C-alpha cells in the first residue's frame, strides 16, 4: 500500500513538472541562429536537399561514427552476455530448448515474395537519404527487418556471421577512410566535398554523402542482423559447443 502511494506520488510530481512545461511552452516563431545557418549552408555548401542528412553525415558525422561504434559494442555486448548462456546450458543438459516449430506455408511464401522487395526498398531509402526522408540508419533497419522475416520463415537457417562481421568491418574502415580523405583534399574529417557536389537535387550529388549513406546502411544492417541472430537460442548453444 505504501509502495503504491509512493508510486502515485512520484508519477504525480512528474506530471506536475510536465504539465508546467507543456502549459508554458510557446511555439517558436522562427529558427534559432544555429539552425538557420544549417538550413542555409547544407544546400549551398554541401549540395544536399535533406538538411538533416547533411547534418548527420557531414557536420555531425563524427557523432554518427561514434553512434555506429555504440551499435558495434552492443552487438559484441549482447554476444558476450548471451554466449555464457550457451556454455551453461551445455554443462547442464536435460533441459535442451525445444526445437522451433516450422513456419506455416503462408509465412514461408510471404517471406519469399517480400524479402527481395524489402531489400529493394531498403536500397531506395539508403540511396535517397540526401534527397528526401531516409538515410543509412533507416535503410539498415529495413534490411534487418528483412533478416527477421527470413529467420521467422526458416528458424533453422544459419546466418553467415563471419560474412556479416567482415562486411561490417570493411564498411566501417571505408567510412573512416572517406573521412580521412576529407582531411586531405577537403575541409576536414568527414567533409563530403571529396567528391564533386554535382547538380543540386540530382541522384548523384551532395559529394560523399550517398557513399557514406551506403556504407552506414551496410554497417547498420549487418550489426542489427548480428544482434538479432544472437537472441536465437539454438545457435548460441551450437556456438558454445564449438
Amino acid at each position, binding site marked *: 500500500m505504501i509502495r*503504491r502511494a509512493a*508510486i502515485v506520488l*512520484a*508519477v504525480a510530481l*512528474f*506530471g506536475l513538472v*510536465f*504539465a508546467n*512545461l*507543456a502549459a508554458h*511552452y510557446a*511555439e*517558436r*516563431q*522562427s*529558427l*534559432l541562429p*544555429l*539552425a*538557420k545557418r*544549417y*538550413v*542555409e549552408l*547544407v*544546400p*549551398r555548401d554541401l549540395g544536399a*536537399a*535533406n*538538411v*538533416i542528412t547533411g*547534418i*548527420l553525415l557531414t557536420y*555531425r558525422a563524427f*557523432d*554518427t561514427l561514434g*553512434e555506429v561504434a*555504440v*551499435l558495434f*559494442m*552492443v552487438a559484441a*555486448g*549482447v554476444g558476450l*552476455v*548471451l554466449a*555464457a*548462456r550457451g556454455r*551453461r*546450458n551445455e554443462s547442464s543438459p536435460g533441459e535442451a530448448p525445444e526445437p522451433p516449430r516450422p513456419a506455416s506455408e503462408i509465412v514461408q511464401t510471404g517471406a519469399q515474395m517480400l524479402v527481395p522487395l524489402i531489400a529493394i526498398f531498403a536500397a531506395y531509402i539508403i540511396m535517397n537519404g540526401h*534527397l*528526401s*526522408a531516409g*538515410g543509412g*540508419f533507416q535503410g539498415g533497419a529495413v534490411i534487418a527487418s528483412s533478416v527477421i522475416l527470413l529467420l521467422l520463415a526458416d528458424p533453422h537457417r544459419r546466418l553467415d556471421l563471419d560474412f556479416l562481421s567482415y562486411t561490417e568491418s570493411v564498411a566501417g574502415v571505408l567510412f573512416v577512410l572517406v573521412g580521412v580523405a576529407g582531411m586531405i583534399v577537403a575541409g576536414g574529417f568527414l567533409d563530403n566535398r571529396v567528391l564533386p557536389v554535382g547538380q*543540386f*537535387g540530382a541522384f548523384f550529388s551532395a559529394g560523399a554523402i550517398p557513399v557514406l549513406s551506403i556504407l552506414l546502411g551496410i554497417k547498420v544492417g549487418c550489426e542489427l542482423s548480428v*544482434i538479432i541472430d*544472437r*537472441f536465437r537460442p539454438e545457435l548460441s548453444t551450437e556456438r558454445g559447443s564449438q
Partner: protein
Amino acid sequence: MISTVVLSTGLALILIGVWGMLTHRNILRIVIGFSLMGTGTHIFIVAIGYVANGTAPIMDRALNVAEAPARAVDPIPSALVVTAIVIGLAVTAIMLAYAIRLYDSKKTLSIDAFTESKW
C-alpha cells in the same frame, strides 16, 4: 498550437512509461515501460524543434532553397532524435539480453524473485 499537442503527447507517454516501470513486476513489462519513456522523449524533442507553420527541412518542389530558412522547422532536434533512437535500440537490446540471462538463472521473469541486491 500543434507543437503543444505533440509535446503533451510525448510527456504523457513519458508518464505512462514511468508508471509502467514502477508498477509492473515483470521484467519484460519494465523494458516496455522504458521503451515507452524513450519514445515519449523522442516525440518531445521533435516537438521542441517545430517552428510555427514550418515544414520538413527537405528542399524539393514545395520548398525552394531561398525560402527554406523562413519556412523549415529546426533540423537539429530531428538529427539528435535519429541518434537517440539508435541508442534507445542499443539499450533495449542489452536489457533484453540481461532479461534472458535473469530468466535462465531463476526460471522466472518476476523482479520479486531477484532479492540478492535488494536492500
